[in-house]
């Protein structure tokens, strides 16, 4: 699926966005278990909660046909992406695993790029 950190060519689908968030979720989960300080775990836990909620919403709403769900989700995506910008800046200090850090930074770039195409209000 979307494990190559490459934004799909053309117009990405809602499922592409779901895959990108899921990939980020997997890596954040790895980072959570790797983090050694309680502060780092707290912050990562907060991000994981936000992304889990988004993936649930993506499954519940068909973006193309439901205006109300679309608007609500657009707001949620925008807010999560803002948090992700913060995460990108902090991630080095939260975890020590170089590979995981690099992967999360790339995941965030990918999510933000796909979200901008799938949810134009973002």
């Amino acid at each position, binding site marked *: 699926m979307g494990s190559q950190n490459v934004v799909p060519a053309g117009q990405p689908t809602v499922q592409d966005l779901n895959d990108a968030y899921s990939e980020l979720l997997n890596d954040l989960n790895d980072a959570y278990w790797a983090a050694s300080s309680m502060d780092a775990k707290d912050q990562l836990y907060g991000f994981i909660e936000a992304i889990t909620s988004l993936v649930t919403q993506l499954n519940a709403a*068909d973006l193309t046909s439901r205006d109300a769900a679309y608007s609500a989700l657009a707001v949620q995506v925008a807010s999560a992406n803002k948090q992700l910008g913060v995460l990108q800046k902090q991630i080095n200090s939260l975890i020590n695993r170089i590979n995981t850090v690099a992967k999360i930074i790339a995941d965030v770039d990918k999510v933000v790029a796909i979200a901008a195409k799938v949810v134009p209000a973002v």
Partner: protein
Amino acid sequence: MAIRLGQSALLLSLLVSLALVGCIKQVRSSVPAFAQATELTSTNVQAAFMKVNQTYGDAQQIQYAVSYDGKVDPSRISAGWLSPEALNVRLLVLQGLKQYASELSSLTGSNDVDSLNKASTAVGTSLTTLTKTAPFKKFTGDVPANASNQAAAAVDALGNWLIELKLKNRLPTLIEKMDPSIQSICTLLVEDIGSVNTDPAQPSEGHGLRQVLWDQYNSIILSQNQYILKNQCKEGERAPANCFTPETRLAEIEKLPALVEQRNAADQTLQQVQATVTQLGRAHTELLKAARTKENLTADLGDLLAESERLNTYYNSLSKKK
């Protein structure tokens, strides 16, 4: 010559009638078995949905307790994996399948046709009304557009079939007419349940109800872990100074692998729902074949019953994984 032609025509029509009677007879002998298998399957799928939802609800209460900060309205925790409306839509569609099977069975000569007809009309009306409701549109909207349109039409067709059901002697035609709708409903249920954990490197990737359940269980597992970490005694500190006694800590840690096991069992139950519903679609196709030819249905019903039994084992095992 005219007499011979007349005789030939009579013979031909007799042969056709015999073939039809044979065909109908064959279908009539297969239908009660199909109906029983379908009823058992639909009941087990309904029970599986309810059991997964209930088990998830119990796990969610743990999350509420361990992350309690006084800011979350407890009435929100009942939102669960499936809301009552979302669960009800699925249960009602399955009830429609059960009623369809009962009606088929009654047409082949069972007893209480009147009360079955009343039940059919009631379920039929519920189904046709259901297709116009927001929860149903959401249910069908979660699958790809072409499948969702077919699914809505299929549930509507099933409802109308149950309402308008009148004829005894058109059984093969009736089965044939309903086959596309039954297939669409089975496809809808399989798509609705979706997928997750197909790639070990990316376990969260997927879609549908399985992905939602998987991610939400993971979130509960992290909440439990946060609770343990936040309540462990710091160096030099001893319980009850806002930290766990060794026994309590051990008991809380033991909940982590139990939750993982519960997540996996719930996911397996949903996978088994997919396998069972797929087999139900196949069995109906075979019933249709039996309506057209004289094939024996036993093997396919055996497969359906086996999948249904397996589903029963899975969802019952969920109660034990607490």
